[in-house]
């Protein structure tokens, strides 16, 4: 029976497959088989039930429920409701057509206040206005006509795509929030009737996936992240991005929802079902970029800070990203400071592993109304409490996500230096380090904290001492020194040979902290004999040569290249290239 259903699903999907993609076809079938058996009031479940033919009556009941609760509304609802409707409308009874239409009159589709909110809102509005053209102002929740809504949504989506392709996303590289960009773009690509919008949505999907692919390892989204939930930070394979990697990159091998250790926070987060139903197919080159780890490489990016609305001098300052990718681990970092509010993840090393909590990092848990006021317009004195209400941990001293003005990084390949300069009187005057309990080894020697996770070796040398606190899945290393720093060296069996050899190589390093107390700067010779010098004021030097972060490209690495502001992103793999030109809406192969 199960095989028959799978075969039926494959047949349905086969009819809309844009190009052959055996990995995608098998996995999308499997996904739809699972999702269509769920019974929650979810637009993804509804679409899966109808499109697989598994339970039309049940799907109609769920869709009816989805249109009933008039208190619900907002951007999440706007795009997912119209998405579910467009994926299923040919099979729906007239009564449900009318109810879905009325939802866009009677409910307030709130636009929200973040980049992902607006992408979801305007995608929903665009497709709804396209679906019901020529209708008057009194038939829409916002008092605008179909044409006014369509034009406004098209304008903003065009603006967002151009911004993302020239100066980058504000909510960039987020294992948590990537799903809120990919899913609307899949729906837009599937149903936009304007061929230009459809193509640009497809190009955005290429860009989002390529951006992810360059920092992907076995289902993990490596490197620094603009925004991430703490649960996903300490358990990278539990993030929503893993579901997308599973479906489109063919990694990891396991099914995330079946694995308690990696299960997403929200089992009902079945957004990938829209991907499984859609006709978008990942260009094979992007999957190669995501999975070919035959050579280690350095990948840099320039992103942007989300809109700074007060207490700043520049609306969208640049964010500089450095990532070192190998077949066993990814070490990546943002350059430090307040780059995103609330959920920033500045640096980590994430290793390929069959175990959960496969990451190590440090942070300063900063929280202040002032930080939030830079980005949110609400009353400064209430912002921290307000944010705590739905992000729960913002003011916690133990939180695992933070953007701190007292943190700076400098990375050179598999060596990272992190400096901390915490102001006296701060809410949380300490730094924390996350070390999973399931490491194969964790020891201390000659000032180094030495960790082994399978074939990956990680060594951290704090400038000043800390203490260990045992927690459920991890050890927390905490230092109350306001001025501190951490040297991080990462290696692997492939790079260094044995664990012992890696530890021995640390003896060749030289750390000079003689200027640390006065200028918060240090010099370090790494295991490869490279001299690094780093000051909290921003001076970064490699072998005496100053590094200018402004030299980073929009994308710069073996797989992705782009000049900031150009609107052209080139992917390369084994002598082939694919260029997305957002200026002309062209793809050059």
């Amino acid at each position, binding site marked *: 029976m199960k095989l028959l259903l799978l075969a039926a699903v494959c047949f349905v999907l086969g009819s809309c497959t844009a190009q052959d993609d055996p990995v995608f076809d098998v996995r999308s079938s499997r996904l739809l088989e699972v999702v269509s058996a769920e019974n929650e009031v979810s637009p993804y479940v509804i679409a899966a039930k109808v499109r697989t033919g598994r339970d039309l009556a049940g799907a109609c009941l769920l869709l009816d429920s989805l249109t009933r609760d008039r*208190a*619900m509304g907002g951007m999440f609802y706007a795009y997912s409701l119209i998405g579910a409707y467009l994926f299923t409308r040919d099979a729906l009874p007239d009564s449900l057509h009318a109810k879905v239409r009325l939802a866009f009159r009677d409910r307030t589709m709130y636009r929200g206040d973040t980049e992902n909110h607006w992408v979801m809102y305007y995608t929903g509005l665009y497709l709804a206005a396209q679906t019901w053209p020529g209708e008057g*102002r009194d038939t829409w929740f916002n*008092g605008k006509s179909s044409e006014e809504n369509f034009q406004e949504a098209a*304008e903003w989506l065009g603006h967002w795509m151009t911004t993302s392709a020239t100066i980058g996303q504000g909510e960039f590289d987020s294992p948590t929030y990537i799903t809120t960009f990919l899913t609307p773009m899949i729906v837009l690509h599937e149903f936009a009737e304007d061929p230009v919008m459809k193509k640009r949505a497809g190009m955005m999907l290429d860009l989002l996936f390529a951006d992810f692919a360059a920092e992907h390892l076995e289902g993990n989204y490596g490197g620094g992240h603009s925004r991430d939930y703490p649960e996903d930070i300490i358990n990278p394979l539990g993030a929503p991005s893993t579901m997308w990697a599973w479906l489109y990159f063919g990694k990891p091998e396991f099914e995330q929802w079946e694995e308690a250790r990696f299960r997403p926070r929200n089992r009902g987060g079945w957004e990938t079902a829209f991907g499984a139903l859609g006709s978008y197919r990942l260009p094979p080159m992007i999957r190669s970029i995501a999975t070919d780890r035959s050579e280690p490489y350095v990948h840099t990016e320039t992103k942007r800070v989300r809109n700074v*609305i007060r207490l700043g001098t520049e609306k969208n300052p640049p964010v500089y990203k450095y990532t070192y990718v190998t077949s066993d681990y990814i070490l990546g970092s943002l350059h430090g400071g307040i780059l995103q509010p609330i959920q920033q993840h500045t640096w980590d090393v994430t290793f390929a592993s069959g175990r959960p909590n496969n990451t190590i990092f440090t942070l300063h848990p900063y929280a202040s109304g002032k930080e939030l006021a830079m980005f949110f*317009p609400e009353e400064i004195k209430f912002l921290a409490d307000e944010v705590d*209400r739905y992000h729960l941990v913002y003011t916690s001293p133990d939180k695992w996500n933070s953007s701190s003005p007292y943190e700076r990084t400098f990375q050179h390949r598999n060596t990272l230096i992190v400096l901390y300069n915490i102001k006296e009187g701060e809410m949380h005057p300490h730094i924390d380090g996350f070390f999973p309990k399931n490491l194969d080894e964790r020891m201390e020697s000659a000032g180094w904290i030495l960790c082994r996770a399978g074939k990956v070796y990680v060594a951290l040398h704090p400038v000043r001492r800390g203490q260990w606190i045992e927690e459920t899945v991890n050890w927390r290393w905490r230092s109350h020194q306001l001025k501190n720093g951490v040297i991080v060296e990462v290696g692997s069996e492939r790079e260094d040979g044995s664990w012992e050899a890696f530890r021995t190589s640390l003896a060749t390093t030289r750390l000079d902290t003689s200027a640390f107390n006065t200028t918060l700067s240090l010099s370090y010779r790494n295991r490869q004999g490279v001299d690094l010098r780093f000051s909290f004021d921003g001076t970064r030097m490699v072998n005496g040569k100053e590094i200018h972060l402004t030299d980073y490209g929009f994308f710069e690495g073996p797989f992705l290249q782009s000049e900031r502001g150009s609107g052209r992103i080139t992917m390369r793999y084994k002598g082939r290239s694919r260029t997305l030109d957002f200026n002309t809406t062209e793809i050059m192969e």
Partner: protein
Amino acid sequence: MVIRSVIIAGLLTCLMVSLYGQTDEPTVYVSVFSTKLFVVGAANPQTGMFFQKPSEDTVWHHTGAKNIRANALAVFPGVNGRIRYTASGNGLHRTRDGGRSWKITTGWRITEIWAVALDRTDSMNVFIGTAYGIYKSTDMGDTWKQVFTGFVSCVIVDRFDPSILYAATEIGLYKSTDRGETWKRTGLSIDRTRTVTQHPKDPLTLLAGTENHGIYASSNGGKTWEKREAGIDHATFYTIAYDPRDPSIVYAGGYATGVYRSTDGGTSWKRTCQGFEIEHIHSIAVDPVHPNRVYAGTMGAGVYRSDDKGETWRAVGLPGAQVGRIVIER
């Protein structure tokens, strides 16, 4: 017979009082930004614009869009509430038919609106203060022009001369003398200003509330300012309201302040917080018909009302609400 006459007379009196009261009674409008239960994108308790007649006491009626995080509102005077605006993160919502239909008059270029001000001499002129600046419309919001850049908390139009406007911003208190086309910083040296209020009878007298720096007063249209400190133990003020009938009485509220009342036009102040569950006050309005009656909007405990000129307060509904603004119109 006598008894029957007395009863009939009594009933008639009640009816007349009731009728008189209804026609005389103003309408209280409040904008609710959020409630304690708010979560982005979820099924939330209603926010937006609410209204009531004071005789309805704790009963409020919702109007317009739900779940819009309404920061401010404005009601064009003298037309029975027919023309109203709600300022929200979603844009500026407008009704021209007393709330039967609403339209968001702004598009994607305008967001995070924190203030709306009307020219009481010409209903076509509307000004909004946003996180990105001030925008001006001369067609009731159908089209907009940006006239100021910066984070704006409050905009007011001079009650006597509509070519003059004031704006409290993150970069100082600003004044325009050409209907909002250009702006110059006033003499107030404090950057982070939160509110500005004009004396109901003297156009040159202004009071300004600041973030962390208390209350300042000007008697020359903003050229020079003096700090008002007598009796004040708090620093951040979001709202200042004159009694329109007796401007020697002024109320002020802000972060953890309860309500401050002055009986000498804002020179000295006395604090009252009797009855408040939460002492964060974001908006105050004085009933123009019954000046003993004052409303205070809190940050998280709904609306409070005093019937004794601010001596004592009691909750009158919208529990849990963060109330951005209160406007009372006849």
